[in-house]
């Protein structure tokens, strides 16, 4: 662990680089991770731990376990959940918890609609004790439905003529 952390520490000291804290741990049929975006753009000081089924099938439902923790000492956090086309949310899309720097668990029931890599999108908004809006933060928990698709072969960054590849978008 010191070796990985050594790299992180070195990285930290040399430049203001990405301190991604995403530690995917596979335990049986579940995949766990930690999402800590606080090294990037400003936002609510929230970290989410998640545990999702490693994969499940169309038509089946599953439970995503979430644990929220905010560094904000007091107030209220409002959470809204939404999914893309590949998943259905099987419960209320809103949730709130008291901010007290303690972990807040939440179980989210979802249903798989189509195969693919989908995301449970989470929007957190914090308010102080007087109801004044503070900062917010968004997260996306990855959820695999069906077998993972083979990743396409990585394209070379340079085209055959030696120039950078260009994406052309047509003018209105």
């Amino acid at each position: 662990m010191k070796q990985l952390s050594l790299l992180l520490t070195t990285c930290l000291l040399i430049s203001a680089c990405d301190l991604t804290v995403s530690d995917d741990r596979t335990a049986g049929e579940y995949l766990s991770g930690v999402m800590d975006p606080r090294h990037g753009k400003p936002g609510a000081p929230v970290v989410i731990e998640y545990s999702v089924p490693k994969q499940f099938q169309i038509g089946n439902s599953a439970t995503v376990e979430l644990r929220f923790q905010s560094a904000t000492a007091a107030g209220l956090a409002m959470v809204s959940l939404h999914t893309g086309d590949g998943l259905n949310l099987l419960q209320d899309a809103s949730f709130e918890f008291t901010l007290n720097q303690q972990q807040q668990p939440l179980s989210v029931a979802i249903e798989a609609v189509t195969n693919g890599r989908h995301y449970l999108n989470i929007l957190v908004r914090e308010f102080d004790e007087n109801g004044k809006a503070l900062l917010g933060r968004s997260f996306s928990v990855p959820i695999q439905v069906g077998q993972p698709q083979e990743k396409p072969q990585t394209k070379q960054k340079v085209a055959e003529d030696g120039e950078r590849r260009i994406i052309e978008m047509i003018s209105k």
Partner: protein
Amino acid sequence: MLLRHRAILRLWLVLLLAVPASAGALQNIAAVLPSIICLLLCDELPDDSTAPALQNRGGTTTLAVNQAAAPINFTNNGGGILSDCTVSPPLPAGLSVSVSANGATCRISGTPTETVAAASYTITATNASGSDQATIMIEVLAGFPVSGRALFERVPTRTGPTQLDYDAIVAMPIRRATVQLLDSNGAVIDTTQSDDNGDYAFSVNPNQAVRVRVLAELLSETGPQQYEVVVVDNTDADSLYSLTEGSATLASARAVRDLTAGSGWDLSADAYTMPRASAPFALLDSVYEAMQDFMQVDANIDFPFLQINWSVNNRTTFGDESIGEIGTSFYSADNIFILGAADSDTDEFDDHVVIHEWGHYFEDNTSRSDSIGGPHGADDRLDMRVAFGEGFGNALSGIITDDPLYIDTAGPGQAFGFPLDVDNNSVTNPGWYNESSVQAILYDLYDSEDDGPDTVSLGLAPLYQILIDEQKNTPVFTSIFSFISALKADNAGQASAINQLVNDQSINGTNIDEQGSAETNSAGVANVLPIYTPLTVDGAAVNVCTIANFNNGGDINKLSNTRYLTFTTPSLNEYTVTATRTSSNYGVTDPDIFVFEKGVLRILSISPDANTESATAALNAGPHVMGMQEFNVVGQSGSNTTACFDVTVSTAP
């Protein structure tokens, strides 16, 4: 003599060939040669029994120097075969008039070799039955002008509620972008740059099929103020975004070619249903705005290469960046990554977010930042290096846009979000360790509005001067102390007003120096002050303690996770630095040592050895700063998290 039958003409041909060659005979053959050719190829024999009746050509025919002109034919309603075509006055050099191959009309062809102003030319067509004339206006330009304006659709942010405002989309110029002219095979035949209005112009062969393409690129490779910025898709092999016409069309058929990068938003569907072409150009524009402000205060500033990575797949998942799982918008090593997943979190139109990240790039390349990065929040008590770096980014976003309201939108329809007022002086946990205090001070130093303790209006230039000079070269760590002490020295007349601003954030501005020697704000806990502990080479050990009182768990960038020391080496020599645990209330410690000389890392000693750390290295003569960090604080938080160490620096034997 009228000849109508092939058989008869063949007989004549045989007879002519049988006649001994003479000048007269040859002339006769030449005169009827067109007829002979047509006889062999045409269904009917050519007819010069009607006089020509040429039609004038309307408008002005525009040609380009050194560009072969497509043949210009005159309509001959007379129908008769022509024997001669002449022109008056003479055509522009390189052009000529002749009878067309089928004898039916007059034709102008050739390659003009010089520019000529528009003028009228009279063509005379003649055959045995008579003659007729027609006129044509011709001009020869250096090239045929193809020009236009490149625009992108910006979706503005709004508050009340905070969101992207798709009802207020505005077309804005794509400024200083590389504009290419392509032929019908997609080969680049010319390159230019749009101006600040988005206008561009080419000069081209009017008869060539071309299309215009605008790259999401800013490029200046010569002269002062050089820069290179590209916007690429990190989920598609870092391919460069561009905006183009649908197909190549004849240059002369379409002289004015305006291009617009659409937002992709469909108001009726209340969703993105079309390509989000404007996003890369919105990013480019925000960065150009920042660069332009600095270019206006420094005529010689250069900006090193910057790559902005954006994709519709970039989302708030940590994972594989090549599929867009970038976690958040952030800066790292000359790359800015920006979120783009619709209905989750998009930042391409949140210009304050983009400029905040660009601020890290600016510090990294043009100024200096000793920030160690890591998790940070508005009310956190941070390592002072992090507090300055993050506060600077926030303040800069307000400075560049001249709008202190930092807005970040997200959620379904991008209809959610939050504002952050960087001009807000009411800060929770104010101090030299708080990014909110730093941003409030920096923004107030810049802006022209007096509010609360703010009576300073320096503008950007004085701040920039400190960033590229004293802050960049400070012998201690970059912080609000190194910045403000230098700013006051450079702007002595504003010292009192600067003090007021700084004091208002619970920082001792009145007696400030680069080391914060006179600072008394300890955040209410022990083992925070002094900010720098002096160390003597070959002297007695000094004892410093780290704490984790302000940690949130899993971080190492909070106040007093690292303690700072200063020492001066008398000569270039090898020196040994050592930290040894003397006490802790949470068990085994793992001290690490970092020694810097003016921001340059000289010693990095981060072994996993328990309770001690030591390293020997050559150091120049002069001042150095040391960071003594307790690595195991990563797993600690709250009070009762103190670890103390004896630190020495000695000349190596």
